[in-house]
């Protein structure tokens, strides 16, 4: 992976977040405390400020730095979770940076596992993991089957979207919405939404770089 890809992907992510201000804000207002958009925006802005510094690093070092920066910037529940994701992903890439889809799938899966461990949560608890776990699984499956990168991107975007939408009918058992019981039903989880947005942004970045 090239560091320049990380930089442009992080810009796409930031734009995706900024473009969904009112949606993210109202989702967290409905079943959380209303700050998810602000948290994500603060994180994205901090990474943008870091660009010059990141540009000089290898991809894994850049991802690790991004993780550390998010850890000290976002706060809330999403901060340590996303930080763990990037730092764990960085570790995998540091060991084996062979630029294969399988390696990226493995790195992604390791990142998602780190989120699971940090948050002690799994599938079906109405969190970002309802997007991330299915995406990680599918990514690994498709990568080991040597699926072409464009096809992988389309598939992951669709899975992310499905996972995000599926949170709507769930009762939350983790995070702030866990206090809500039945009242959480009918609302998409904000973290699931922002993860779907980020996956979408990165996939589109990959797709456009293929042309």
């Amino acid at each position, binding site marked *: 992976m090239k560091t320049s890809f990380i930089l442009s992907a992080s810009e796409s992510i930031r734009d995706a977040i900024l473009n969904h201000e009112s949606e993210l804000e109202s989702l967290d207002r409905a079943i959380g*405390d209303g700050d998810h958009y602000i948290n994500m925006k603060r994180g994205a802005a901090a990474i943008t400020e870091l660009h010059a510094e990141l540009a000089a690093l290898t991809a894994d070092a850049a991802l690790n730095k991004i993780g550390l920066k998010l850890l*000290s910037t976002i706060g809330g529940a999403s901060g340590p979770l996303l930080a763990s994701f990037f730092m764990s992903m960085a570790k995998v890439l540091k060991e084996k940076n062979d630029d294969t889809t399988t390696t990226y799938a493995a790195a992604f899966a390791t990142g998602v596992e780190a989120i699971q461990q940090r*948050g002690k949560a799994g599938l079906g608890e109405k969190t970002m993991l309802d997007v991330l776990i299915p995406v990680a699984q599918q990514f690994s499956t498709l990568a080991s089957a040597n699926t072409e990168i464009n096809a992988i991107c389309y598939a992951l975007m669709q899975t992310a979207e499905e996972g995000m939408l599926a949170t709507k009918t769930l009762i939350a058992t983790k*995070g*702030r919405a866990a*206090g809500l019981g039945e009242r959480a039903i009918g609302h998409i989880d904000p973290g699931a939404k922002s993860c779907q947005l980020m996956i979408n942004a990165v996939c589109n970045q990959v797709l456009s770089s293929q042309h």
Partner: protein
Amino acid sequence: MKKFINKIDDVLIESLSGFASAHHDLVELNTDPLFLTRQHKAPNKVAIISGGGSGHEPLHAGYIGYGMLDAACPGHVFTSPTPDQMLAAAEAVHADKGILFIVKNYAGDVMNFEMAAEMLPFESATVLTSDDCAVINSTYTTGRRGVAGTVIVEKCVGSLAESGADLQTCKALGDKVNSRTASMGVALTSCTVPAAGRPTFDISDNELEMGVGIHGEPGRKREPMREADAIVQDVVSAILDALKPASDSEALLLINGFGATPLMELYLIYNTASRLFTEHGIKITRSLVGNYTTALDMAGASITLCLLDEEIKQYWDSPVHTAALRWGR
């Protein structure tokens, strides 16, 4: 949104600067990373550090000082602080007997403090407060939230630490106080997070939010507004259900305002709550009424009952000297 603020991004630092300057005899403010420490660092004691999202003032910075906290790490409004803050605060206040973190049980706070604890070069332990009985505990959830009862935990543990007790003893007292404490809150209006610029939730003139969280999270139920006695009755019942106190228990009753509720109403709530608990055979022998764990400008209040024993009474009564709680010196 009408608030006394300048730029939204500066609210927190300007407010903390004011706090540090008004209480310069008690606290010192560090800005990068953001944390506050106690003046007159006490030698040879467990260092007690708390923190959490801002907007709950006087929690936690208002409880820094003799007999309570050694440091506090304020996050952005309603957002957990980050591990670098806890690490720097710990570095500043540790005194060779380890660090005790007092953390309100919210996913964000728990995870950020956990990561700090993992990175910490000192021995540490954590007391998770979880007094909010609005959230029914179950094995599937992250459990109850920590709310106003946190103040009682911080007070008692802080006084014990002052006596030179070791880390595990301090943690044990914190866990004990927490397990004997239950709270539940009611909101009449929403709060408005400055950065959001609009109320977190909509609520009409004839509704209340029963079991609301201290961040304006929706509670158990949206209910019709009714007279104070009926509201208090429901909250008292939930607390009794959660604590199941023996009928001759002695207790501390805390009526906590969320920020926009006049003292007149808080004392009216105290009047009803203490009568109801007394009718249930509970002896209210300690009390605290005021804005101790707030939710910005939310109108509403929470009721907290803490079942006392001789040990808890001793540490509750011990001298404390902080910006928001002071007695005995």
